[in-house]
C-alpha cells in the first residue's frame, strides 16, 4: 500500500472542501436571518391584523424562497466529500460525527419540508395562527439544523466526550451531552447564527434602501427598514457578545489560532491588540482573550518553543516535545495492533494503556516539521480584521439609519441609502472572512491535536480531486448567478406586483 500522501492531494482536497463549504455558506446565513425577519413581520400582521404587513411578509418570503431553493442540498456535497476525499477522517470520527449529522438531516428534512409547504401554500387555507407557527417552525428547523452542524464542527475544533478505541480505530462517544453542549459548540452556534441574522438584516436594509432611493413602495420600504434595522442592531449585539466569548474560548483551546489572528509572535502578560500596521491598543488582546488585565497570552514562538506558564500552573510543552509524545503514541498504537494480531494480550493491554496517556498528542506524531503547526498568518490576520472591521461598520450604519428613521429624515440622505444597498455584498464578505478565520485558523488539524489533515485525507489521485474542484466551481457559480438574477427580477418587480 502506498503510504505517501502528496501535498497537492491534501491541498486540492482542502481547496475543494473549502470551496463547497464557502458556497454553501452563501445561502445558509440569509436563510437563518431572513427566516427570523419574516417571522417578525408575520407576527406584526398577526397582532395588528393589517393586510399591509401580510403583503410585506409575502414579498420577503419570495426572496427567502429563491435563496432556499438555490441553497438547498448544496450542503449534501460536503457529506459526499467526507466519504470520498476524507475517508480516514470519516472512519475515525464516524461514531461521533454521524450522530449530530443524522439528527440534523432528520430535523431539517421533517421540520423544514413540512412547515415550508404550509408557509407557502397555506395562506388563506390554514388559520392565521397555524400559518404563523409554520413560518416560525420553518425558521426554527433551519436554526436547529445549524445547531447540529456546528456541534459537529465544534467537536473538530475542541474534541470532547469521546475515547479513542485502537481496536476499531475510532473515536467513540462516551458522553452525548458533552459533545452536544460543549462550550465551544454553544459559543460557535450563537456567533454563527447571529451572524446569519445580521446577514438577513443587512439584506433587508439594503433592498429597502434601494426602493427608497428609487422613490418606490415607500411605505413598504420604510416598514421593512424599521424591522431590518431594529433586528440588525439586536443581531450585532449578539454577534459582538458571542464574538467576545469566542475569543476567550479560542484562547483556551486553540491558542495558535488566536496568535495567528493577531500575528503575535512573542507573547506577553499585557499583549496589545493590533488594529493594523503599527496601530496597537495596549493590553487589549490580554483583556479580550482572558477577560483579565494581566495574563500571559502566548505568541507563535512561545507556542512552538514552549516553556511559558499555563493557567493551571504547569509549564507549556514545546512543539518538539509534543511531536515526540505524538510519535510515542503512534508507536504504541502500532504496537497494540501488532500485539492484538499476534494474540499477545498482556502486551496489547500495556500498549493500549500507554496510548491512552499519550492520546492528547497523537496528531503531533504525524507532524514532520514544527513549521506545519503554524497556520497561514497573513491570511488569518487580514481575514480577522475584515470580519471585525466590517462588523463595526454595520453597527455604525444601522445606528445612523435608525436615528434618521426616528427623526423621519431618512429620505434626505440618498448617499447613505446607496451605501446601505452596496453593503449587501459586504455582509457576505464579512461572513466568509469569519469562516476563513475559523477553518484556516485550525490548520493543520482536521481534529485539533488528534488528526492532521494530511492523515485525514483519502489516498486518491489528485487529478480527480482537481477535476471535481473545477466542476463544483462551475456548478456553484451557475447557481449563484441564477440566484442573483432571480432575486434581482423579484426585487425589480417590487412588492406592488407581489400583492397580486
Amino acid at each position: 500500500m502506498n503510504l505517501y500522501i502528496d501535498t497537492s492531494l491534501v491541498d486540492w482536497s482542502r481547496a475543494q472542501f473549502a470551496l463547497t463549504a464557502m458556497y454553501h455558506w452563501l445561502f445558509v446565513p440569509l436563510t437563518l436571518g431572513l427566516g427570523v425577519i419574516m417571522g417578525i413581520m408575520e407576527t406584526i400582521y398577526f397582532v395588528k391584523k393589517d393586510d399591509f404587513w401580510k403583503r410585506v411578509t409575502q414579498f420577503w418570503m419570495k426572496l427567502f424562497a429563491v435563496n432556499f431553493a438555490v441553497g438547498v442540498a448544496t450542503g449534501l456535497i460536503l457529506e459526499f466529500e467526507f466519504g470520498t476525499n476524507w475517508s480516514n477522517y470519516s472512519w475515525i470520527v464516524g461514531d461521533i460525527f454521524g450522530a449530530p449529522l443524522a439528527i440534523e438531516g432528520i430535523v431539517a428534512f421533517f421540520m423544514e419540508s413540512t412547515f415550508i409547504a404550509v408557509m407557502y401554500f397555506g395562506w388563506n387555507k390554514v388559520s392565521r395562527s397555524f400559518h404563523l407557527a409554520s413560518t416560525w417552525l420553518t425558521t426554527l428547523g433551519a436554526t436547529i439544523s445549524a445547531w447540529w452542524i456546528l456541534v459537529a464542527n465544534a467537536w473538530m475544533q475542541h474534541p470532547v466526550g469521546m475515547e479513542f478505541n485502537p481496536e476499531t480505530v475510532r473515536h467513540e462517544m462516551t458522553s452525548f451531552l458533552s459533545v452536544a453542549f460543549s462550550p465551544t459548540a454553544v459559543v460557535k452556534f450563537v456567533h454563527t447564527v447571529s451572524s446569519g441574522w445580521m446577514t438577513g438584516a443587512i439584506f433587508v436594509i439594503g433592498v429597502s434602501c434601494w426602493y427608497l432611493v428609487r422613490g418606490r413602495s415607500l411605505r413598504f420600504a420604510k416598514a421593512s427598514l424599521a424591522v431590518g434595522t431594529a433586528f440588525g442592531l439586536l443581531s450585532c449585539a449578539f454577534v459582538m457578545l458571542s464574538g467576545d466569548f469566542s475569543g476567550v474560548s479560542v484562547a483556551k483551546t486553540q491558542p495558535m489560532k488566536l496568535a495567528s489572528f493577531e500575528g503575535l509572535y512573542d507573547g506577553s502578560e499585557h499583549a496589545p491588540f493590533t488594529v493594523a500596521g503599527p496601530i496597537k491598543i495596549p493590553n487589549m488582546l490580554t483583556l479580550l482573550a482572558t477577560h483579565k488585565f494581566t495574563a500571559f497570552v502566548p505568541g507563535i514562538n512561545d507556542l512552538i518553543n514552549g516553556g511559558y506558564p499555563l493557567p493551571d500552573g504547569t509549564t507549556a510543552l514545546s512543539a518538539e516535545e509534543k511531536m515526540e509524545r505524538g510519535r510515542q503514541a503512534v508507536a504504541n498504537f502500532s504496537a497494540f495492533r501488532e500485539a492484538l494480531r499476534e494474540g499477545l494480550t498482556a502486551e496489547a493491554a500495556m500498549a493500549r494503556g500507554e496510548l491512552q496517556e499519550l492520546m492528547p498528542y497523537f496528531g503531533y506524531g504525524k507532524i514532520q516539521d514544527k513549521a506545519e503547526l503554524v497556520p497561514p498568518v497573513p491570511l488569518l490576520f487580514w481575514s480577522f480584521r475584515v470580519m471585525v472591521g466590517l462588523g463595526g461598520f454595520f453597527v455604525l450604519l444601522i445606528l445612523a439609519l435608525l436615528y434618521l428613521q426616528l427623526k423621519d429624515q431618512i429620505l434626505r440622505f440618498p448617499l447613505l441609502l446607496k451605501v446601505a444597498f452596496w453593503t449587501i455584498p459586504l455582509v457576505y464578505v464579512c461572513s466568509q472572512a469569519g469562516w476563513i478565520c475559523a477553518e484556516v485558523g485550525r490548520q493543520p488539524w482536521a481534529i485539533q491535536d488528534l488528526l492532521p489533515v494530511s492523515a485525514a485525507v483519502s489516498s486518491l489521485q489528485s487529478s480527480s480531486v482537481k477535476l471535481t474542484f473545477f466542476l463544483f466551481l462551475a456548478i456553484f457559480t451557475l447557481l449563484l448567478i441564477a440566484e442573483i438574477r432571480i432575486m434581482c427580477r423579484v426585487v425589480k418587480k417590487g412588492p406592488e406586483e407581489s400583492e397580486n
Partner: protein
Amino acid sequence: MNSIPKMMSSVFRFYRDGFRQMTLGRTLWVLILIKLFVIFVIMRLLFFQPAMKGLSNDEKQQRVATEIGALQGFSNRFSPSIHPEQ
C-alpha cells in the same frame, strides 16, 4: 373511520392546489430538480464513490490503521517561517 382518508385527501388537495398556483415557484422547482439531478446522478455516481467502498469493516479498520500509523512525506507549504524577524 373515514377521517383518515378524508384528511389524506385534504392534504393531497392542499399540495396539488399549492403546486398548481405557483408562479415563481415553478422556476425554482426546475432549478431544484436540475440541481438534484446533477448532485445525485452525475456527481454521486460518476465522481463521488466512497473511497473505501466494497471493503469490510475489518478491512477498513486495517487500512485506516495502516495509514494513520505510518504516514510520511507531508509538509505544509503554506506555513510561514516560525521566526520571521530573525
